């Protein structure tokens, strides 16, 4: 595999736990030491449930949030060492597509203006060529060029997501964080947008960090997957492999919980007890220990945090990943 486009090392992001009634408590450890790499043209899916820290990883990589610790290298450049001006130049090559395309579009600006904005800021094409480029981008995401003169509310959810994608593409990025890009869409429209994202990836050689909670969607689009739980990666490897033979008990539960639209092939469901621990006071041992059903679970799981280590073709953070269940 070629040199990584993106290298994330030991990423930590803590948020101050400040409310009206509490002050100065311990910080929330949203991301607690995440390392990952993405090669050019590769899609890495970051999977986890709400509160697992997956969205914060994406936002911190793009420097929409300042990391508390850790390093993010993009095309070999450490983003933490860049002055704001230099960072802006790098940002042109790193874009984001959000879950809710409507919330990320200004309702009072035409679609054409929203797409042209990035072209103007980054001087991608001469001013006179902008309308033509906007029309080409709209065509590329499957919309009619006449969409440029209309407003976001005149479009359906799927069309708005296409607009969000066109806007991200405008500045010719190499890397896009796709943050739950199809979660808000109707099933019949979801597939259209997934196919579009995959076509664009292949045509333009884009790399994606694809943040999702739906493993079936991940199976469809991702080359590799990293499963997050309570701010850490508990398992990572080739997407098909991890989903077919998950080694971490949490991944196993996650895979078994995915609704399968085939009554004849209902997997044995693992129904997890309880809820994840608070990210304010993460347990010293394995973050999943309190809900773990692994028969070999022992004192060590409570006391000592397991590191990600190679087990077969994946990396797994479980003291008992080798033992049969």
């Amino acid at each position, binding site marked *: 595999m070629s040199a990584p486009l993106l290298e994330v090392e030991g990423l930590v992001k803590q948020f101050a736990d400040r409310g009206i009634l509490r002050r100065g408590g311990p910080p929330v450890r949203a991301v607690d030491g995440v390392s990952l790499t993405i090669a050019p043209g590769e899609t890495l899916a970051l999977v986890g449930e709400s509160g697992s820290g997956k969205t914060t990883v994406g936002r911190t990589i793009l420097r929409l949030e300042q990391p508390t610790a850790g390093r993010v290298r993009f095309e070999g450049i450490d983003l933490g060492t860049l002055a704001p001006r230099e960072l802006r130049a790098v940002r042109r090559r790193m874009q984001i597509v959000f879950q809710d395309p409507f919330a990320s579009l200004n309702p009072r600006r035409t679609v054409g203006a929203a797409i042209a904005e990035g072209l103007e800021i980054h001087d991608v094409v001469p001013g006179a060529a902008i309308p033509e480029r906007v029309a080409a981008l709209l065509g590329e995401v499957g919309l009619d060029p006449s969409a440029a003169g209309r407003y976001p509310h005149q479009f*359906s959810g799927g069309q708005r997501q296409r607009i969000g994608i066109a806007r991200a593409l405008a500045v010719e990025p190499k890397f896009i964080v796709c943050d739950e890009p199809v979660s808000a869409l109707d*099933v019949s429209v979801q597939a259209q947008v997934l196919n579009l994202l995959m076509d664009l990836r292949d045509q333009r050689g884009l790399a994606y960090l694809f943040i999702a909670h739906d493993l079936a969607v991940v*199976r*469809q689009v991702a080359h590799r997957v990293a499963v997050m739980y309570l701010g850490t990666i508990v398992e990572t490897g080739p997407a098909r492999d991890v989903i077919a033979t998950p080694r971490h008990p949490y991944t196993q539960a996650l895979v078994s919980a995915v609704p399968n*639209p085939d009554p004849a092939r209902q997997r044995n469901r693992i*129904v997890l007890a309880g809820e994840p621990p608070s990210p304010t006071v993460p347990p010293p041992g394995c973050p999943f220990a309190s809900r773990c059903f692994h028969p070999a679970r022992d004192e060590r799981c409570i006391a000592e945090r397991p590191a990600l280590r190679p087990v077969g073709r994946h990396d797994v953070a479980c003291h008992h990943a080798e033992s049969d269940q």
Partner: protein
Amino acid sequence: MTPLLEIDQLSISFPHRDGPTALAVDGVSLTISPGELVALVGESGCGKSHTGLAMLRLLPAAAELGENSVIRFDGTDLARLSDAEVRRYRGARIAMVFQDPMASLNPVMRVGDQISEAIRAHAAVTSAVARARAVELLAEVGLADPRSAVDAWPHQLSGGMRQRVMLAIALAAEPDLLVADEPTTALDVTVQAQILELIDALRQRRRMAVLLITHDLGVVAGRADRVMVMYAGRIVESATTAELFAAPRHPYTRGLFASIPRLDADGSRLVPITGTVPPPDRWPSGCRFHPRCPLAESRCGTEAPGLVATPTGHAAACWITAGSGS
């Protein structure tokens, strides 16, 4: 078996002062037997939630029930009852849980008090008895520590726990029918699995019928006895879960299956349904799916097909795939 609920020709419209009346639900008929789990599946705007709300007569004030609509529950047509009479059924014999439990729970009232309130609305018991019953209900819906949960405020609970509390409130009067409208859509997958297991366990233990309203065919598989698929205000297909999943007959249902990413897929490209779901004031003539249908012929654009059933009761409304009889 005599059905517990029999809906016949349910139509719900939203009259506009100027412009055409939007028909959100158009001639929906369905039955549910005691203890049965029936799923109503469709995408946003198809009318599935309005169908559910109509059973409890909880439609928004602007909605009008069609003249011929019948909502017969245990022999009584709820569509003909006064608001006061409906209250003997709503909450008591038919209960409902919604997608967002936080929007349904009172944020300034302790969980136990909200359950007690539901109990005492339908039974003359003392507050001490109601509270003890609330603890029992919280235990039944699987809250780990019901004695302390009874004093909790809604904001102290996670999404999954709140949905369990909503179920406890719904169960308070021992309903015969639970209408669950996207009960797990806002929840994480592992929590979703917990809540679906719980709903299934409750219906078996209590022999309670469930109408599960969902957009997710995966949620339906392996749980529902029967499935009805709605599109643009009409039921387009209806069958036992096994038959529907083995051999879907309506092109819309087939399209849904082809567009769902699956864990066991071979990685081939998804086949989406083209276009988008039209809004109720712009529903197409004839078969409402025809502009998006790969099989559509000229007749589909002008004449609406009725549901045609096979001998096993697998019904579909399609001129092409379900024959032309009526």
